[in-house]
């Protein structure tokens, strides 16, 4: 959907669907390339989106992803339904992970996901309710400023 003020897209992720894991991040990346966003911002956005997408596939039941693009910023909001995160501060620490063997076989679950999102985003907000789900807000500014 395109309007004068920007672009808004909505996607759905199914938890546990490893075969399709990464397709939404790839789509977001392609959209940003088509629009002509600077390559370094595209790469950082794609990495953050991919890590968040993998988190949903690995841990949640389902999620809705909203991409909002304005002249000032890229905003990705992910709202998942799932077990939630008990201790977000702990989950943000590099190396902390509750991943299963199956997740590690996929090359993920090394406790790097959330720190990687934070590293690549200009602003990263995460909140969670145990037993309900987790919300991620990933923002990258296009003019390099907030």
């Amino acid at each position, binding site marked *: 959907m395109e309007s004068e003020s920007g672009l808004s897209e909505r996607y759905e992720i199914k938890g546990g669907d*490893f*075969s399709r*894991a*990464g397709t939404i*991040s*790839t789509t977001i*990346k392609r959209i940003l390339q088509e629009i002509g966003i600077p*390559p*370094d911002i595209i*790469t*950082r956005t*794609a*990495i953050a989106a*991919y*890590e968040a997408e993998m988190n949903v596939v690995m841990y949640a039941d389902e999620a809705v992803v909203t991409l909002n693009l304005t002249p000032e910023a890229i905003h990705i909001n992910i709202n998942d339904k799932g077990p939630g995160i008990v201790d977000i501060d702990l989950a943000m620490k590099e190396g902390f992970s509750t991943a299963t063997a199956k997740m590690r*076989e*996929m*090359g*993920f*679950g*090394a*406790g*790097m*996901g959330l*720190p*990687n999102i934070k*590293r*690549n985003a200009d602003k990263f907000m995460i909140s969670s309710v145990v037993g309900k789900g987790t919300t991620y807000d990933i923002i990258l500014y296009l003019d390099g400023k907030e």
Partner: protein
Amino acid sequence: MTLREIKEVLKAEVLCGEDSLDVEILFAGGSDLMSDVLAFGKPGLLLLTGLTNSQSVRTANIIDASGIVYVRGKKPDEEGIKLAREMGIPLLSTGFMMYTTCGILYSKGLAGVAKSLK
């Protein structure tokens, strides 16, 4: 080094991307952890990995890697190769182990990658 030279020194098989072998590779990095690759990866990276599922290809696409070399004779499944073709990512497979693969390329002057994007 070009991907073609890398193919020669690693005695590698080209799984897809024959037409991309003249691409100049400036640096490489090896890992089986895709989150690590996403943490250290930079556009242009040659990814050396033993992880053969399609996430290796997707990760390479996300960071704009120049290609993937699978070590220890490993090869991705057909789905991974198909995905790489669609994404234009050349895939090679070498019989050398990870350590030896890294050592050969490093000794030929191919640099590693150390700095993150931000």
